């Protein structure tokens, strides 16, 4: 192929036909309440870690559903549980984070 001196950026389109939702489906088995999230952002708004680390339970749940890697975001969480206190859909968000961390720990070992 002729080198034109530039490359085409990778498409940023979310292609739902190719999204890998295997982790999402695994997590749903232990955290079925996650399905109830309405992306209101209350969890992220109260999160002490959010402004500095970019942590956001809402984004974690959204990314999970879209098959995006969420491991980097989790490290910002201090497990304080404020997000769980405010969630209007009654999701145990802190527990979700623990389940995700447990999953990644297992992955590391394997």
């Amino acid at each position, binding site marked *: 192929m002729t080198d034109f001196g530039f490359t085409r950026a990778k498409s940023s389109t979310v292609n739902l036909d190719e999204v890998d939702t295997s982790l999402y489906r695994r997590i749903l088995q232990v955290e079925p309440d996650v399905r109830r999230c309405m992306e209101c952002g209350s969890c992220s*708004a109260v999160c002490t870690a959010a402004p500095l680390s970019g942590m956001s339970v809402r984004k974690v749940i959204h990314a999970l559903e879209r098959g995006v890697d969420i491991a980097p975001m989790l490290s910002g969480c201090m497990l304080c549980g404020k997000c769980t206190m405010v969630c209007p859909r009654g999701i145990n968000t802190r527990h979700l984070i623990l389940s995700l961390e447990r999953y990644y720990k297992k992955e590391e070992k394997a």
Partner: protein
Amino acid sequence: MKENVVIIGGGIAGIEAAKQLLLLGYCPIIVEKQDHLGGHVAEWHKLFPDMTPAKDIVDEMTSEISGANVFLETTVSSLNRLSGGYSVVLSNGIAIVCRAILIATGFHLFDAEKKEEYGYGIYNQVITNRDLEHWFNSGKDARIDGREMKKIGFVHCVGSRDLKAGNSQCSKVCCVTAIKQAIEMKEKFPEAEIYCFYMDLRLFGKKYEDFYINAQKDYGIHFIRGRVSEVGEKIDGSLQVKAEDTLSGKPLKVSLDLLVLMAGMVCNPKTTEIARMIHADIDTDGFLRSRNNIYNIMESDRPGIFLAGTCTGTKTVPETVAEARAAVLSIHNYLSR
């Protein structure tokens, strides 16, 4: 002799039903716990979608039921099933025997103090949708009068869509009410920046979307997609409001001079008391259960007990009025059997 029909609740549902019952030759008896008719609508200022003065609607409707018996400041003390009907004993001691009863006890505005994180009853700069309607009507509220209004916020879904507040339902009328009130505030304070904090905008009714478009185009109202998580007071006396700006994915804060909470509609606890007297059911949303939620909202599953208006769920004024008329037709059919 004309046949009695007892109507519990003299809001617009009860008034409209009384009017239609009079036209059909019945003797409607309204039992209203407050000292005036009109229910919640009597507290509002201007009604969407046409900004009709609420007072005009209530006055006009009330003027048409001069032939009805109205007991104000009265409630129902007991309701007992007789063969073929009911005996209703009122708090003023009067007993009425009738074959049909219409429950039109309406809704209850969610008590905003229960959502402590929003600071109602704690901070002076936090008011409710009802307080704002009162201010539009009376022009008097120490929390607004004489204060500088540079930035005003509206919080949608207060006590609605909130499992922790005990109400998972959408109250349906508060999105359009917030936008209506935001526009009215912008007219009163043209220099103010106005923010509506919403999760979803639900503008389902006739011409409601026009309010949204006008609010954006003609009034420059800002819409922030994020649920307010907490409210605090700053040293300068303004409020600090926090949310996530979910569309940019960043935490957001803004200082405000006034915050208006859109308290939602929940079932009136008095309705539940009456339901208990006749062993009527409560639906899973906390409101009274209709015989059928699709084609028979106006009938309960108890013989002779009919339902109209917001005692069975959130409704607008035109929906309530239409339902009251439908309930009267059901009553008429029942009594002429």
